[in-house]
C-alpha cells in the first residue's frame, strides 16, 4: 500500500520532475560546459579551458557593467527596502478603505516592464516630461534624467521603486504577524512609537527583511528589461550598461555563447558568495522567534 502510494506520488510529480530535468538541470549543466568552450550557437563548441574566464578579467566593458550593476544594487535595494517597509507600516494602520489603498499601492508592480519603460521615458523626458515640467513650475532645477550619465543611473534607481509593491505585501503580512502582546507590554513600559518600532516591530520582521533584501539583491543583479528599453546599448556612454545586458549581447548579438555562459557563472558565484555572506552577517541582526 505504501509502495503504491509512493508510486502515485511520483506519477503526479513526474511532469514537474521531467520539466525540471529538461528545462532547468540540462541547460544549467550545459552552460557550465559551454563556459569552457568557443561556442557560437551554430558551430560545434570547441574546448578552450579557462580562456573565457581569463578574458573576462581583462574585459573593460565587463568590468564597467559589473561596476554599474554593483552601484545600482547597493543604491536600489536599501532604498526599496526602506520604502516598502514604510509603505507596509502605513498600510497596516486601521483606516477606513485600507484594502483599496493596499490594492492601489500593489498595482504598479503588476505593470509589464516594457510598458513601464516606455511610460517612464515620457515622465523623465528632460524638456517636456511630467517630472521636469513640475520641477520647472516649482522653480527647481531640471536635470537631464536620461542623457546625463551622472543623473541617468539615478533615474533607474528611482524607477525601480515603482515595483516595491511585492515586497510591501510580504512586509504587510509580517507586520500583521507581530504579536500584539509585545506592543501592550511596551505600552506598559511607556515606550514611544519610535521605540516600539525600533525594539519590537523591526526585530520581529527582521527575518522577512533579510528574505526580501536577498531577493531584491538577486533581482537587482539581474536587471535587464528596464535599462534595455530605456537606455539602448547602456547609453549614455555605457553608464547604464548592466551585466545582464552585456551577457545578452554576447550571447545573441556577438555570437559568443561560451563567453556569455562564463559571465553567467561568474554572476552566479558572486551572487552566491554575497548571499552566504549576508546570511552569516545577518545572524547578529535577525531575530527568529523560534530561537
Amino acid at each position, binding site marked *: 500500500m505504501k509502495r503504491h502510494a509512493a508510486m502515485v506520488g511520483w506519477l503526479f510529480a513526474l511532469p514537474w520532475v521531467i520539466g525540471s530535468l529538461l528545462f532547468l538541470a540540462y541547460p544549467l549543466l550545459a552552460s557550465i560546459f559551454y563556459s569552457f568552450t568557443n561556442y*557560437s*550557437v551554430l*558551430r560545434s563548441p570547441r574546448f578552450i579551458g579557462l580562456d573565457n574566464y581569463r578574458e573576462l578579467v581583462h574585459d573593460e566593458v565587463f568590468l564597467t557593467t559589473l561596476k554599474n550593476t554593483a552601484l545600482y544594487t547597493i543604491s536600489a535595494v536599501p532604498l526599496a527596502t526602506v520604502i516598502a517597509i514604510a509603505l507596509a507600516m502605513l498600510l497596516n494602520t486601521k483606516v477606513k478603505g485600507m484594502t483599496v489603498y493596499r490594492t492601489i499601492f500593489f498595482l504598479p508592480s503588476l505593470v509589464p516592464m516594457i510598458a513601464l519603460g516606455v511610460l517612464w521615458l515620457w515622465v523623465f523626458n*528632460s*524638456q517636456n516630461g511630467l517630472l521636469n515640467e513640475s520641477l520647472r513650475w516649482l522653480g527647481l532645477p531640471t536635470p*537631464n534624467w536620461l542623457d546625463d550619465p551622472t543623473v541617468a543611473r539615478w533615474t533607474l534607481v528611482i524607477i525601480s521603486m515603482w515595483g516595491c509593491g511585492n515586497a510591501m505585501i510580504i512586509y504587510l503580512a509580517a507586520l500583521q504577524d507581530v504579536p500584539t502582546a509585545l506592543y501592550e507590554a511596551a505600552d506598559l513600559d511607556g515606550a514611544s512609537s519610535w521605540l516600539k518600532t525600533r525594539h519590537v516591530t523591526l526585530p520581529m520582521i527582521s527575518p522577512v527583511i533579510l528574505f526580501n533584501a536577498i531577493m531584491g539583491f538577486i533581482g537587482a543583479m539581474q536587471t535587464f528589461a528596464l535599462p534595455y528599453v530605456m537606455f539602448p*546599448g547602456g547609453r549614455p*556612454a555605457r553608464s547604464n550598461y548592466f551585466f545582464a545586458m552585456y551577457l545578452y549581447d554576447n550571447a545573441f548579438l556577438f555570437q*559568443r555563447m561560451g563567453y556569455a555562459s562564463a559571465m553567467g557563472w561568474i554572476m552566479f558565484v558572486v551572487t552566491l558568495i554575497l548571499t552566504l555572506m549576508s546570511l552569516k552577517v545577518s545572524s547578529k541582526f535577525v531575530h527568529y522567534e523560534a530561537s
Partner: protein
Amino acid sequence: MTHSKTIGAAALAVLFASSVVISERTASRQTRSDRIVVTYWEKWTKDEMKAMKTIVDRYNASQSRVFVKMLSISGIAEKTLLAASGGNPPDVAGLWSDQVCQFGDANALVDLTPYAKRYGIKPSDYIPSYWKDLIHKGKLYALPTSPGSSALYVNQDLMPPEYNTPKKFPKTLSQLDRLVETVTVKKNGKIERLAFMPRSGFGGGSWPYLFGGALVRGDKITVNDRDNVRAWTWVTSFAKRFGMAETQQFQSTFGVTSSQDNPFIAKRLACIMEGPWFANFIRLYGHETKWFAVPMPYPDDRPDCAGYTVLNLNTLMIPRGAKHPDEAFDFIAFVQKQNNMELLCRLQYCNTPLSRVSEEFLANHPNPYIRVFDALARSPRAVGRERTGFLNQIQAEVSNAVDQMDLGQKTPQEALDDAQRRLEEGWQKYQKQVLGT
C-alpha cells in the same frame, strides 16, 4: 467526490479540450493541407506586413503546389539563429542585409547561388550596391525585398526664400552651415528649433563615409582613420555650437520616427536624413507639412563625395536546416519579378532594388521624390552594409565613442582610438572563435 465536484471537473475538462481544439484551428487557419507549406517569418507589422501579405497572396494564388504561410515575428534575427541551431528554422526568413555576413559566418544560411543560376537571376538584375550587400565570401545568401536610400528631407515652410526649393538648397557643407545659422531658433537659452542635427534620422552612424572614411576596409577595422575623425568632429561641432547640455535637452524631446513627435514632423528640425518610407510617416502624422527631398550636401573639399546616401535592404534568406528550400526559393524568386517587386516597394513607400525600373513605378509612386532616392541608390557613393560579421560589435563601440564625444568626455580622436583598440582585440577573438581561423 461529490456530485457537484464531478460536474465541475467534467466542465473544466471540456473547457480545456475545446480551448485546445479552437487554438489549434486558429493557428492553422492559414495553412493548406493539400499543398507543401512554406513557413515564412517576417519582421514587419502593420502596413508593411499588409503589403508583403499582398505578394504572398499573389504567390499562393499563382500555383497549386506550394502554400506560403507568413508569420510576423519580433526579435526575428535572434529567433531565426536559435531556431536554426535547434534544427527547426522557418523555410524563409525576412531579415536585413546586416545579417548576411553575420549569419553567413555562423554557417546559418543556405547558399542561394545554385538556385539563382537555375532561375536565371543575375547580378545585373540588381542595383550594384544592393547586390553587393547580398554576397558574403563569394556566396549569395539572400535576395532583396524592399530597400531604402537616404536623402535630406527639408521642411519648405521653415526655409528662408533663398533656400526653399531643391534647386536653391545648399550643395556643400559650408552652405549648409550658413543655413543652420539662419534657421535655428533659441529662446531664453533653450533651443526651440534647429535646422539640422546629424545624429537624428536614418544612417546616423555612417557619417564617416560622407568624408571619404570607412569603418572597415577589407579585413581591417578603420574606425579611427583620419577621415572618420574629421567626420565625427563635424558631427559633434553641432553640440558644441549650441551648447552640449542644451542640445541634449533638445534631443530628448525627439519621439520615435513613426509618430507626430518625430522632430521633423513636430517642426523641431527643419531638415532630417531619412529613407523614402518617411514620406508615409509625414502623410500619417504631419500631412500639412510641405517638404522636398535632396541629396545630402558634401564637404567643400571633397566634391567626389557628392551623392552620399546610406542604403538599407530588407532581404529573404533560407536558414540552414529549412525543410523546403526548393519551394522556399521558388517563392523568393517570385518576389524578384519586376511587377511583384515594384508593387511591394510602392506599397511600402520604397525605391526598387532592381536595376530595371518602370516609368509607371516612378510616376505613380506615393513618395513624390522617389526619383531622388532611386538615383541616390545608384550613386557610386552609396553606402551599403560593412562586409563583416563583426558589425554588431563595431556599431556598439562606435556608438559608445560618439556618446563620449557628445558628452565632452573625450575628443573624437581619443574616443575613436579607444574604440579602435578594443575592436582590434575583439576582431582577433572573433576570427579565432567564430571563424575558427
